[in-house]
């Protein structure tokens, strides 16, 4: 290195903190950036199309269930497993009322030279994980065994030169039978069992699948099993913790197609895995919800038979392990016949809890199943599509009885740029107003008057914007325009007045702190500090935490996190946090947050951050509102804009912020909402 140069190689392959600092000075021109964006789209499109294409060609002649475009197309749908690998015999796959019906007498499946691998469990020792192994996620395992079953295997003679370089190993186990495939650097494979060792050449396509499978990808469900280097050559050590394989149940295969005469529109056939059969239930006794089951908000399945059919389309794997960790129900389904009430609860970890309750005795049987990720998408999509199909036919008065608005904001009359949240009472009134009003759908091209009220709220899966115009019309953005009853406008006017009265300083003149100006200036600085500290676990925050370096630790229940070295419980962190944030508000309680968790006597910080609102622009303390005992309340304005993302809306949300005065005169943060 000469005097006119400097070697910055030390910054190569740097830690995340350094990367983020350098990233602030990323030098790419707009042109280069645009080129890379176009490339990412091109690669994405080609991958998506390729998968689509594969599906269509491989199951040609079969009516394919189409997922919405925004869903991932992975190559191993259960339907494909049935069709691929079939080498002889005429196979006809028809679909009728959702059942798989294979009418065929001669089915011969391809297998590898070592038999059909699809029922084997698989563990992999790859470059990245050695000497530990990982058990691939369901999709990857299926893709691998399917590829190996269908590969072209050519045995090599014993004198074929052995390549240099280390090898990666794929271990197989079914019951007591174990063997391994050792992948050499030239792509050839040794088959190794207790009694035998053979070497094979395989086709390029299968080699690619194998290399893909060798990559350890925890986000795809790969589970790491820690082993030490002594275990490498001991196959029993590789499988020492393995429990019995999962039992897989296939939907019952009928050999006789259902004829039209047997169909009955009032009855539906629902595949119920615990009984391994299709049960016939009255269609009007089938209902669903895209969330935790609630009879009051559930939708009837009467006009969405495709949802019921979806249960027969996926492959159900019975689980013997009970998942630990906190998961939520993302979709639920109930139906009943004379004997049982059947329930399906689909959890966010792809597990499905199935129950049937004897109507007379009340006896309940519960079984747990899982599906592959692709099947899970199929199922969940069926729920979402059914929900969208039904709600798109509903007028808001009916719609919002199923998907009840929450977290609602409203503007003042004629001041639509600023909205503020409703409290629980106002929101109840708001929901009443929406559901008791009359709504008449108008054509999209209808010209509306001036907007007088702007509202924003969540209705189940979406955030909705509702505009009310001065000519008695309304528009739910991205949905429809409506003519609304006068009563709704009157109700909204009352609610708006009510909500805004609560945050207007002029209504609290007798409750102002004595030194208002001074308090305001002090609060401005305090608010900035509060935002900087808000759930900040890093060195910039108000917590003195030593967080472990390196990758987050992965646990068997799917959770992951970095060890916080200098505390033994979340309570300790909570106490530190409460030095600056008052414990008066439950939202300041770290124990209720999802950012940290305790395991085996240690505390871990989860890898996921708090998220961010990309539309956030700025925030400022706007007014002193009032003082009540030891707490001073303020309003803050949070500004948002869609402009830089191609939208044209900008708006402000007015929220409460408070400080709690301590006996020594110092302040702690009371009520606070993170604006981003």
């Amino acid at each position, binding site marked *: 290195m000469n005097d006119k140069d*400097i070697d910055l190689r030390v910054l190569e392959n740097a830690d995340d903190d350094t990367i983020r600092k350098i990233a602030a000075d990323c*030098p790419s021109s707009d042109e280069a950036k645009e080129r890379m964006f176009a490339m990412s789209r091109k*690669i994405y499109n080609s991958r998506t199309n390729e998968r689509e294409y594969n599906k269509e060609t491989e199951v040609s002649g079969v009516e394919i269930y189409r997922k919405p475009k925004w869903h991932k197309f992975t190559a191993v749908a259960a339907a494909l497993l049935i069709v691929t690998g079939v080498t002889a015999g005429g196979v006809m796959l028809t679909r009728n009322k959702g059942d798989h019906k294979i009418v065929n007498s001669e089915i011969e499946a391809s297998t590898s030279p070592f038999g059909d691998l699809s029922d084997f469990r698989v563990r992999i020792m790859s470059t*990245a994980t050695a000497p530990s192994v990982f058990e691939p996620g369901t999709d990857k395992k299926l893709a691998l065994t399917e590829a190996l079953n269908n590969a072209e295997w050519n045995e090599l003679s014993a004198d074929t030169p052995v390549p240099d370089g280390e090898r*990666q190993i794929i271990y197989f186990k079914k019951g007591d039978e174990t063997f391994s495939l050792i992948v050499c650097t030239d792509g050839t494979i040794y088959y190794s069992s207790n009694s035998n060792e053979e070497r094979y050449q395989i086709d390029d396509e299968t080699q690619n699948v194998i290399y893909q499978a060798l990559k350890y990808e925890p986000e795809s469900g790969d589970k790491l099993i820690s082993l030490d280097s002594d275990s490498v050559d001991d196959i029993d050590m590789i499988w020492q913790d393995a429990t019995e394989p999962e039992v897989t149940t296939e939907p019952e295969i009928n050999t006789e197609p259902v004829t039209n005469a047997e169909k009955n529109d009032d009855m539906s056939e629902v595949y119920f895995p615990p009984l391994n059969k299709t049960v016939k239930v009255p269609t009007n006794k089938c209902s669903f919800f895209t969330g935790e089951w609630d009879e009051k908000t559930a939708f009837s399945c009467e006009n969405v038979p495709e949802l019921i059919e979806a249960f027969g389309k996926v492959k159900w794997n019975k689980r013997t392990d009970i998942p630990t960790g906190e998961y939520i129900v993302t979709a639920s389904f109930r139906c009943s016949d004379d004997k049982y009430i059947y329930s399906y609860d689909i959890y966010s970890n792809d597990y499905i809890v199935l129950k049937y309750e004897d109507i007379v005795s009340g006896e309940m049987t519960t079984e747990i199943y899982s599906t592959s990720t692709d099947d899970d998408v199929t199922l969940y999509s069926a729920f979402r599509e059914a929900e969208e199909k039904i709600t798109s036919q509903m007028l808001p008065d009916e719609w919002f009885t199923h998907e009840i608005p929450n977290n609602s904001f409203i503007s003042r009359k004629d001041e639509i740029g600023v909205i503020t949240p409703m409290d629980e009472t106002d929101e109840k009134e708001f929901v009443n107003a929406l559901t008791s009003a009359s709504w008449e759908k108008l054509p999209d091209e209808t010209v509306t008057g001036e907007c007088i009220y702007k509202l924003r709220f969540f209705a189940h899966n979406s955030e909705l914007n509702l505009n009310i115009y001065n000519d008695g019309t309304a528009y739910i953005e991205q949905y429809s325009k409506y003519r609304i009853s006068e009563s709704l406008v009157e109700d909204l006017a009352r609610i708006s007045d009510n909500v805004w009265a609560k945050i207007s300083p002029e209504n609290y003149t007798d409750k102002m702190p004595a030194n208002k100006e001074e308090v305001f200036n002090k609060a401005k600085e305090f608010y900035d500090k509060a935002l900087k500290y808000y759930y900040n676990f890093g060195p910039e925050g108000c917590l003195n935490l030593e967080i472990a370096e390196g990758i987050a630790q992965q646990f068997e229940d799917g959770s992951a996190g970095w060890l916080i070295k200098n505390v033994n419980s979340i309570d300790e962190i909570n106490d530190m946090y409460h030095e600056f944030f008052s414990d008066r508000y439950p939202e300041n309680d770290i124990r209720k947050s999802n950012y940290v968790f305790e395991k085996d006597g240690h505390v871990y910080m989860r890898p996921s951050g708090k998220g961010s609102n990309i539309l956030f622009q700025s925030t400022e303390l706007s007014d002193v509102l009032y003082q009540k005992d030891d707490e001073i309340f303020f309003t803050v304005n949070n500004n948002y804009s869609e402009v830089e993302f191609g939208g044209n809306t900008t708006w402000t949300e007015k929220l409460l912020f408070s400080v709690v005065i301590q006996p020594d005169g110092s302040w702690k943060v009371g009520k606070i909402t993170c604006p981003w």
Partner: protein
Amino acid sequence: MTHDEFRKISKSSLEKAQRMLFDEYFNYVYTIVFSRLRSCASREDIEECVGDIFADVYMYYDDKKELSGDISGFIGAVARRKSADVYRRLTKKSFGRISIDDEEAEQFEAPDNTEDTIEKKELRGNLIKCIERLGEPDSTIILHKYFFMRSSREIAEQLSLTPEAVRTRCSRALKKLKEKLTEMNISL
């Protein structure tokens, strides 16, 4: 950008959602890739790798599976893994199993898989601090020139300066930086 936001925007336009995701994480991803491949890859290779990473992220984001909160950690992991693959391909290292004692093991690992030595991290931190203390635009010029290996003309275009001004500032900034590093007893 959270998964929910992506989904909401992709409902009206998938491309828009992808562009927003791309814009938000581009600098981060590009820097990870560049920092891994700067010694062995062409700019085309680097750009292709960045495109590939985002395509992967879009595919993942299409999935209904929830990724809670900020996903920069996940994107960083994808970027590191992909660029390590490209590094391996370009440097034609044997793709074999590595014993943990292998001295070469380190270069196969993504940095987040290694216990970065405290000294090295401290060194990087101090170096970045020294660069930052040069102030703008000198700190940017130094990083663009000596880390991102941009020409004076390219830097000039980015910073709206003349190439001459970039050269002059660069040589002064370099001198200052070296003085600072010497003061801190840092030799590179």
